[in-house]
């Protein structure tokens, strides 16, 4: 069960003096280093794969479990559909409910990914405008660093239906959560400027690029104070990366991908929808005969497809519990290690982290040496390809436009991830690659278009 500070809660004994909290014994069955390597032996061994954040990873034992589900369907699909599928999806939803501390399994729907969840939430906003429940010009707020798909979804579903979108300008690099909170308040004020209602706030839990952990609990509280109709937390990177307690966070909608940081195969995500009158307005955009039976049931059947990634969740939990401390232990170690590696890189290159350690999760942004001459987003893509092709390092790079008057501005930040399969050598290779480029007086301008 997730608790905000990430510590295990220990049951209290009755009456007598409590014995010291038992130290969780290192189980002889804890997964070993070589077992971990074996579980991820299908990864391209030549690549320093320090980008778990983009596409996640899936251990071999889960791949096998998924293939077994796929075969079960292919073996006798009718029987599978009538007798196995619904129960399997329900079991996965119940596991997730427990993981995220939702009250009721009816609040948990399984969808392909956060992108799909955004379509679900934003579509009902669009109907609000179409059906005249919202006025033209009513507002939806999102972060400037919202994921590209979410921005486009806002365009497709909100702007097109007559809503106005307000972006929260977030500083980057950032040094405290207060900076974020201040900007957020400003954006809400802008939203309410013309006496309009803010119908929805979309808040990332962990932004994608640049990656920063957002103080969602505080922001949700502010939304309630400021009379925002609905709050949607886009936590694509949430589960397995930061603590997810949906009741604590208090949003109306919360989505997270399990294939990013929770070892599931592509692709499976949950969309949590707090029980309320509005729950019945939510629909999966792909409409099947289950339409009207509730989002969770609708999402569990959107036509003939491969649902095996959704069915494999219980196996994923088993995998995660092979690690010392389970998912909590994994999160803690990933965070500690990525910060350590980030600081190692920053020291070596003479740069900085993009945010303080307590505002990052299993990913961290590190400034790249200014002399690399990263002058545009295109440059970051070219550099990324160069790092992949020449040094076999896989890492995404973010372009940060310099502010006026900045001297030798740091305009490029690499987003490094740490997941259980990573080794120190991965980051050392990256360190050395950049140092080599700097030593060779390399600039992005030298890369062909």
């Amino acid at each position: 069960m997730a608790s905000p500070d990430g510590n295990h809660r220990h049951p209290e004994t009755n009456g007598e003096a409590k014995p010291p909290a038992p130290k969780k014994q290192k189980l002889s069955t804890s997964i070993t280093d070589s077992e971990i390597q074996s579980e991820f032996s299908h990864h391209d061994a030549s690549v320093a794969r320090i980008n778990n954040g983009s596409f996640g990873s899936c251990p071999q034992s889960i791949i096998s479990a998924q293939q077994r589900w796929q075969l079960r369907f292919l073996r006798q699909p009718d029987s599978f559909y009538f007798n196995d599928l619904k129960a399997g999806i329900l079991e996965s939803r119940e596991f997730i409910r427990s993981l995220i501390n939702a009250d009721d399994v009816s609040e948990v729907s399984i969808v392909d990914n956060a992108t799909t969840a955004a379509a679900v939430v934003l579509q009902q906003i669009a109907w609000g405008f179409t059906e005249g429940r919202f006025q033209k010009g009513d507002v939806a707020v999102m972060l400037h660093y919202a994921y590209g798909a979410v921005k486009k979804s806002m365009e497709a579903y909100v702007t097109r239906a007559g809503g106005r979108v307000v972006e929260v300008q977030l500083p980057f690099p950032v040094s405290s959560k207060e900076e974020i909170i201040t900007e957020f308040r400003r954006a809400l004020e802008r939203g309410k400027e013309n006496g309009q209602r803010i119908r929805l706030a979309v808040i990332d839990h962990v932004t994608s690029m640049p990656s920063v952990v957002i103080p969602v609990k505080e922001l949700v509280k502010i939304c309630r104070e400021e009379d925002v109709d609905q709050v949607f937390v886009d936590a694509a990177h949430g589960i397995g990366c930061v603590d997810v307690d949906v009741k604590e966070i208090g949003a109306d909608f919360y989505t997270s991908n399990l294939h990013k940081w929770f070892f599931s195969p592509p692709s499976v995500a949950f969309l949590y929808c707090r029980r309320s009158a509005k729950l019945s307005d939510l629909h999966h955009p792909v409409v099947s005969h289950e339409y009207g039976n509730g989002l969770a049931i609708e999402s569990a059947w959107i036509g003939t497809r491969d649902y095996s990634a959704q069915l494999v969740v219980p196996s994923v939990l088993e995998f995660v519990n092979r690690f010392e401390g389970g998912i909590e232990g994994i999160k803690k170690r990933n965070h500690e290690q990525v910060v350590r590696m980030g600081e190692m890189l920053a020291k070596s290159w003479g740069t900085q982290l993009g945010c303080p350690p307590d505002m990052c999760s299993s990913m961290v942004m590190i400034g790249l040496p200014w002399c690399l001459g990263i002058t545009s987003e295109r440059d970051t893509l070219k550099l990324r390809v160069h790092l992949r092709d020449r040094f076999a390092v896989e890492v995404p790079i973010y372009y940060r436009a310099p502010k006026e008057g900045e001297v030798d501005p740091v305009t490029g930040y690499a987003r490094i991830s740490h997941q259980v399969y990573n080794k120190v050598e991965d980051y050392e290779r990256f360190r050395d690659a950049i140092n080599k480029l700097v030593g060779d007086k390399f600039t992005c301008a030298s890369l062909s278009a």
Partner: protein
Amino acid sequence: MAGDDPRNGGSSHGHSNHRHVAKKPKLSQSISESEIRAEFSHHAEGVARINNGSFGSCPASVQSAHRDWQLRFLRQPDEFYFNILKDGILRSRTLIKALINADDVEEVSLVDNATTAAAIVLQQVSRGFAESRFKPGDTVVMLHCAFQAVKKSIQAYVTPAGGSVIEVELPFPVSSKEEIIDAFKLGLDRGKRDGRTVRLAIIDHITSMPSVLLPVKDLVRVCREEGVERVFVDAAHAIGSVNVDVKEIGADFYVSNLHKWFFCPPSVAFLYCRKVDFSNDMHHPVVSHEYGNGLPIESAWIGTRDYSSQLVVPSAVEFVERFEGGVEGIMRWNHEEVVKMGKMLVESWGTNLGSPQEMCASMIMVGLPSRLLISSTEDASKLRSYIREHHGVEVPIHYQAPKEEGEGPRDKDGGRITGYARISHQVYNTAEDYYKFRDAVTELVEKNFTCRLIL
């Protein structure tokens, strides 16, 4: 690829329904019977699987190619996304364009299934109403037997946006395509009453339950004559069971699932959208950063997912070409066998087929004995489960409510035929599958079994 299939409608020349196709020489590498068995050896033993229509089937070699694609992604996903995925999707789309005789690969998008395609088309209609391009009350016409997901999609997207819906009832059992065309014309007339515009007509190419191959070319022509703005053909079952020539058929939108009759793993379908001069305003409902780049590009990236069923289409084409006559050969074989087996069953039970053989492809509706007393949809469903559990036969059953007193087909016992089984034939089926079904039903009748006995 596309030969004119008279069963799709169009002018009839009175010629035989067996098109003369040059017989492909039997290649020494033609797939053998035992190879076919091996390819489908993962199918559950002891089940007479005569329902390919519902969920399709996927041979082992295509599954293996599918797993290869999945592993390629997992091995190095970033590289896969940047360097491999788009080309792979384009390759699949290009193959499909050739299969269906589309003009331009830009007309071909890959989506999960026909259900998703319906959402795409109907969302566009919804926007037409919401943005006042359509008048409130303008119509969408669909068939009464349209797939339930399509009906619900209309309920979700058309009605709340202000559109009205007309359901056209088609006769069943049916004896000629003229009955279909006449019924459809009547339905269209209703749609246009009071000066309303029919914004969209949704026509099945092969209906699901009860299953009939419709003269879709004729129906599209009627739509054009009657001023229907756009026509969407839901051909979930078509590719791999009838010839699909989208230009001949002439619809604006045409969707078919490749995992039903074209040996792809679940799930992959193509949505054909006839090229137009203006922006066709077709969007995938799941919006990614590719929004606005055209439906084929939008559909090729709807967030991180497993796209391997879409990427494996070339392997399915390879598989199909191992058969004598390729997909044409398979379609002809399936059709001949399912008709033969259907006739065998109705003869054995003293019942009738639901349609003439030229109005079916790889599936046919077979009347069930009246003595089974199938008197509701629930009965049909319960009987199906019963036959699965007690007789090891997988076959969907349709309840056809009798129209009027005294009307309707009767079986050899003089009772009303109210239940029809939809049998499918795919390359893995053998005559034994249908004998098993024949014997199961015969046994039930002899035991005086009725649906009332099933709890």
